[in-house]
Every structure is written in structure tokens, then in C-alpha cells.
């Protein structure tokens, strides 16, 4: 876990590292973030950025014969992914005061400004396709079976107070720290360790959503 000052420092280091770097696919997730603080209360800073996604519809692969007649649905063939509408997403990395780790909050809207329903969110290109496995959904949350908290649910942004969707952070620390054991060198400076921690957190986040 991170203390709030460590979180603040890690975020600032991240912004600094990538603000002048050349864009590359590998680092998409880490680039373009802005650090914002609350105008009057310290210790409520967060990262934010805007991203675009597409709504994703899956159609079965249908054979068409030479007379342009539909013949059969080929269940063995992969479904065709039809991306239709452009969706805008505001994304935030905030500090969870309860779990003392970063936490991913976001909103997503149709091009006409209407917010997406949970089903629309889950079938957009924001989420990895296996998101629905072993999970139950309601109109307000997605919960993996046998877990204490919903994976995806609604809450107020801790700094702005605006309602958002967020991914529950409680399992994050364990996974991040396991992964860090493999890569961290004892001789790294405190700043290097903080930046590694945050980058590893983005890796773990990337297993659920497409942060690019």
C-alpha cells in the first residue's frame, strides 16, 4: 500500500516522465495524465485524462452463398466485432483513503452526452472481453462471485464529489506487491520505487480494462 504523500509523489513522477516522451503503443496507458489538486484542501490530488472508446457489438459469422442467400451461422468461426459508436470517457486515478492504494474512477458518455448503462459500458472497448466471466450484474454493479465487494460499482469521486463508476481497489495491493517482488532492485531510490509501484498498478489495471 501507499501513504497519501507517496501516492502524490508517484503520480507527479509519472506525469513528469511521460509528458515529453514520444508516443508509443507500449506506454499509452501511462501517458496523457494531468495532476489536479483541490483548490482549498491539500491531500486530495488526483490524475485525470480523457479517452475515447467504441461501443462493441458481436455478431455471429454468417455464411453467404453465391446467390447472396444466408445459409448457416458458422459457430466455429470467431464472431465479427462491429465497432459502432464513438464514446468519450473521463478517467481518474484517485487515492483510496480506506484501502490506501490508487483507485480507478471513470465516466463514459454517448456522443449525444447521455451516460452509458452498465451493459453498454461492459460491452464497450473499455473492458477486456472476459469481464463477464463468473460475475453477476445489476443495473448498478458487477460483482465477481465469492468476493466481498463489487468489482465495478458507482461512487462519488473523492475530490470533486461527482458520481462516477469505479473499480474496487481492495485486491490490488496483493497483486501489485507480488509482481513487484519479481522486478524491484533493493538499490532503487525511493522515487524509483514509487514510480515502479504505480506503473505496476497500471499493469494490473490493464488486465481488466484497456487503459490506452
Amino acid at each position: 500500500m501507499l501513504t497519501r504523500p507517496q501516492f502524490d509523489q508517484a503520480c507527479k513522477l509519472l506525469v513528469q516522465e511521460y509528458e515529453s516522451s514520444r508516443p508509443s503503443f507500449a506506454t499509452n496507458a501511462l501517458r496523457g495524465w494531468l495532476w489536479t489538486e483541490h483548490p482549498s484542501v491539500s491531500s486530495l490530488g488526483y490524475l485525470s485524462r480523457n479517452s475515447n472508446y467504441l461501443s462493441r457489438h458481436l455478431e455471429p459469422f454468417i455464411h453467404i452463398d453465391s446467390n447472396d442467400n444466408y445459409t448457416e451461422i458458422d459457430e466455429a468461426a470467431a464472431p465479427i466485432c462491429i465497432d459502432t459508436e464513438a464514446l468519450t470517457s473521463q478517467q481518474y486515478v484517485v487515492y483510496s483513503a480506506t484501502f490506501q492504494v490508487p483507485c480507478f474512477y471513470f465516466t463514459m458518455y454517448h456522443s449525444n452526452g447521455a451516460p452509458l448503462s452498465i451493459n453498454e459500458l461492459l460491452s464497450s472497448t473499455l473492458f477486456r472481453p472476459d469481464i463477464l466471466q463468473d460475475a453477476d450484474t445489476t443495473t448498478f454493479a458487477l460483482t465477481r462471485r465469492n468476493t466481498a465487494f463489487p468489482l465495478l460499482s458507482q461512487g462519488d469521486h473523492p475530490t470533486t464529489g461527482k458520481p462516477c463508476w469505479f473499480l474496487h481497489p481492495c485486491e490490488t495491493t496483493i497483486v501489485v506487491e507480488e509482481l513487484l517482488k519479481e522486478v524491484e532492485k533493493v538499490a532503487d531510490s525511493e522515487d524509483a520505487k514509487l514510480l515502479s509501484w504505480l506503473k505496476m498498478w497500471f499493469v494490473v489495471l490493464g488486465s481488466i480494462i484497456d487503459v490506452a
Partner: protein
Amino acid sequence: MSTYGTTRHHHSPAANFSNRDRATDYHTTLFRRLTWDGTVPLEIRVDPKELPANSDRNLECYFVQAPRVSYLPLLMPEIRRFFMDLVFDETAAKDLKDEEWWFETAEGTLVKWHWPIGLIYDNHTISASLKPTSSRSSTNAIPLRLILHLASPPNEKLLLSPSPEACKQAFMGQLKEADFIRWGSTKRMTGLRQQDQDGLWEGIKEHNFDDYWRVASKVTPTTAPTRAQSPVPPSSSASMVNRPPSADPGGPSERDGAYNVRSIPVRLYVPDGPVIQGLVPPMIDDNTPRTLSHYLLDHIPLLFPASPPVPPPSRANPHPRPPPVPRPAYALVQGIVMPLETEMAWLGGCLAGADGWVNVCIGINH
């Protein structure tokens, strides 16, 4: 200020709890009962521009004395019944969809339905304290005026579903977070049988103290009688009962006591400001419990400055006391102005809301 029901017949604390022999002392039970029984007045009025045709305008206001620990979505059925049965004309109202109903304060702020009603009320009180004409001297509670809109919720509102199911999930989430804050894991909450976990929410829905606490006592820390110091009750408070001597025979387990938690689940609300949450360990050092004064000095020192030191004794003043300081602000918990020497751990054990959280609302003095 809000009213508290008179203390009704006392249940013997031991009789309510399981064979696990976790008798809660009389003192803790008393304050938990007072918190549970606390209510606030609400005045709900439909936006006049949205009243369906032929509504009975003489009855346009619904008054309710709502429990502090309850939630607006749980009040919706009675609010709906009042307006649909008594106020709206049946034909004009038949197309209304109550999932599109939403609340706004008279000042135009969107009401957070997932906050306990007591918190919505206290947060409004402190927001009003910013205005120069407000006065805290009145002992009668002023109703919180809410405007009920029947359609076209703003986009922000569309995002947060107001259903009782969503409300239950948010409530359970808060209880688990409080558990995590206290002990570093949610084992105590998740270790409860599903039936018991559901029983907590049923207790809120039915507003039944015994049903709620039958389960909550298994996960909520108690204050050990030898260490708890309740604040001196404010003399202006109408039905606050003076702290009686503790009658507890065995005492709760120290290991699970309020003074042994890692941190107390507390949130701080400043008028029209963000919600502040930080680590609140119960003790400053081995012998000194953290008080509200320490907590507020840590987070909002400009409003709650440290007391200047006591001057050294002199012949003219052999028993000096610290000089009085002007207090620009006050702290409300459950609608009561709290003495600053109140211990945070005591608040966690005795004056937390039903969702496990102590909500400290800061108002401005004039």
C-alpha cells in the same frame, strides 16, 4: 439541532446478544439507542412547475420525522403513496415513472440518496451556517426542505441509481469499509452468515434496533468501561441523559475494543467542501487517547487551532488555566455539538452511524 426520542424501556443488554457472551455495557448501549432513535424533520414538496394537472394544492407538502440512520430510497414508498393517493389526480399522474423522481435541496443542490438521512441533514445545517443570518441558538429543529422532481433527472443523477437494492449494496459496502479501516481486513463482516448480513439491512428497513444490533454487535467494537470517557453532556440538550454508572458485570473483550482498532472510521465534512478522510489511530501515544481536538487540529488547523499553553503559576495566579480562545467553528456528530475533549475511539463505539462511520460536520460560528 435534532430531537431524540425519550429513552424507552431498557432491555438488559445481555439478553439481546448471542451465546458468545459479549455483553455490551449499559453506557454504550444507551448512546447507541439514542443514536438509533434520533430523527430529523423533512419537508418534501413537489416542484410546482411539475405538479400534474388537478393536483390538490392544499396538500402539496409531505412532512416526515425521518430516522437519522435511514435512507431516502427507503422513504420513497410512503412519499409516493402520499403524493399519488392524496395529491395527484389519478389520470394526470398515471404516466409518472417513480424511478425518474429525484430530490434537490431548496438551495438547488442535488441530494445524495446514498448518504444516511442524518448526514444529509447535518451537512445542510453546516452549509446554512455559512450564511450570516443563520443562528444556532434555536433549540427547535428546522425542517430540511426538499424539492421532489418527477422527471428529467440531470445526467449526474442518471448515473446513480436510487433503488433500494443499490442503497443496500452501498450500505453493506460502507460497513465492510469500516471493518477494513478498523482491523485491516473485512473478515469480521464477510465472516457473518449471509442471513446475518442481510439482517443488518433488514434492521434498517424495519427500523428495528434489536434486529440490527443483534448482528452489528458481532462486528462493532465496544468501549471498555474502565477506559471510556464520555463527554459532559451539554446543558442545553433537552433529552440527553447524564451518563449513568456502568452496570456491566464482565466487560467486553479488550482485544476487540474500540481503543485497539488500527484506525477509527471517520469522515469530516466542511461546509460546501470536499469530504476529508484520513487515518485516525485511537491513541496518540501509549497513554493518551486521541480526542476530537487532536483530530481537528490535524486536518483543519485554521478552524480548530491548538490551545495556547497554560501560563506558569505566579503569586497572583497560583492555579492558572489556559486562556480562552475564540472558536470560529464547531463540530457536529449526530446533530450534537461535540465537546472537543471527546475521544475518537469513544465516538467510534458509541456515536457512529448504522453504516459504521462517524460523520463529523463542521459548522461556522458567528
